[in-house]
């Protein structure tokens, strides 16, 4: 595979990783609101922590979509 294509893949993968920006903020927001929610109503053990972890997992998935796209560009 010639060099121009190879280098374009590098740049493309780098660009695709920028998609992680929102997810970093998203995870921060989810845990930030967990902390505030917990201080307001410390009936924790029921759903509160469960929803935060669910929210984290679903936000994480968006990061992984972007990373999967980056891998796709880099290696195919």
């Amino acid at each position, binding site marked *: 595979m010639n060099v121009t294509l190879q280098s374009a893949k590098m740049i493309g993968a780098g660009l695709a990783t920028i998609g992680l920006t929102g997810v970093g903020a998203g995870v921060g927001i989810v845990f930030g609101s967990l902390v505030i929610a917990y201080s307001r109503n410390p009936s924790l053990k029921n759903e509160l922590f469960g929803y935060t*972890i*669910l929210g*984290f*997992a*679903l936000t*994480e*998935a968006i990061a*992984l*979509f972007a*990373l*999967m796209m980056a*891998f796709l560009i880099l*290696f195919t």
Partner: protein
Amino acid sequence: MYNINQTFFSASPLEQFEIIPLIPLELFGLNMSLTNASIFLILSVALSIFWSTLVIYKNKLVPGNWQSVKEIFYDTTLTLVKDNLGKKGYRYFPFIFTLFTIILYCNLIGMVPYSFTVTSHIAFTFGLALAIYIGINIIGFRTHGIKFFTIFLPKGVPLFIVPLVVAIEFVSYVVKVFTISIRLFANMTSGHTLLKIIAGFVWTMISIGGVFVYLQIIPLVLLLALVGLEIGIALLQAYVFTLLTCIYLNDVLEMH
């Protein structure tokens, strides 16, 4: 100087996901060979059956430690189904339980070094998600008949934006298959790749020698933290996959 760095450090961090046919088998033109992926799938099924029967073997009222672990595992799935599907969901509980077990075991076995993570292949996760999706649609048609199409129209939508909402609902209904499978696949793949790269750092640092031999403690500690994170993500993704299956099943059973 014989550079051990080149020989040991594999081609690329993605090399761990290659499927190697162990027993090549040609059956009516189909490649039915036994690969390391199928071996690890069989291994995780055998392990889950073996462990479940072993735990239930001497059923005591006051559970021993292994039995209590199994009970916690059973209980989380039961509350999962009870919360999201209610009484009518109990028919689907065995399916949800096996789904949760198989994904959990595949993920956790993948954490063992030199093993193979079955769920890190889109073929496995997408096949599973598509099968569940088709099953859910069949259930939807059976319970609601032709009225099933009202699923694309949520209640209380003002008339003039109905076509837009239906279009978006349709897209997000179809997209569920892709998101649920890519979520599991991407989590497993990039998690393990991250571990491999950090491990590669430790290795290259040692092979450089000199002061780096002591400096390699930093990526090593990072690697340990990440292994913990990876195990957490393995459990979490199995739970999320099952939870979303329950939610989608509930969407179909209970037309909003």
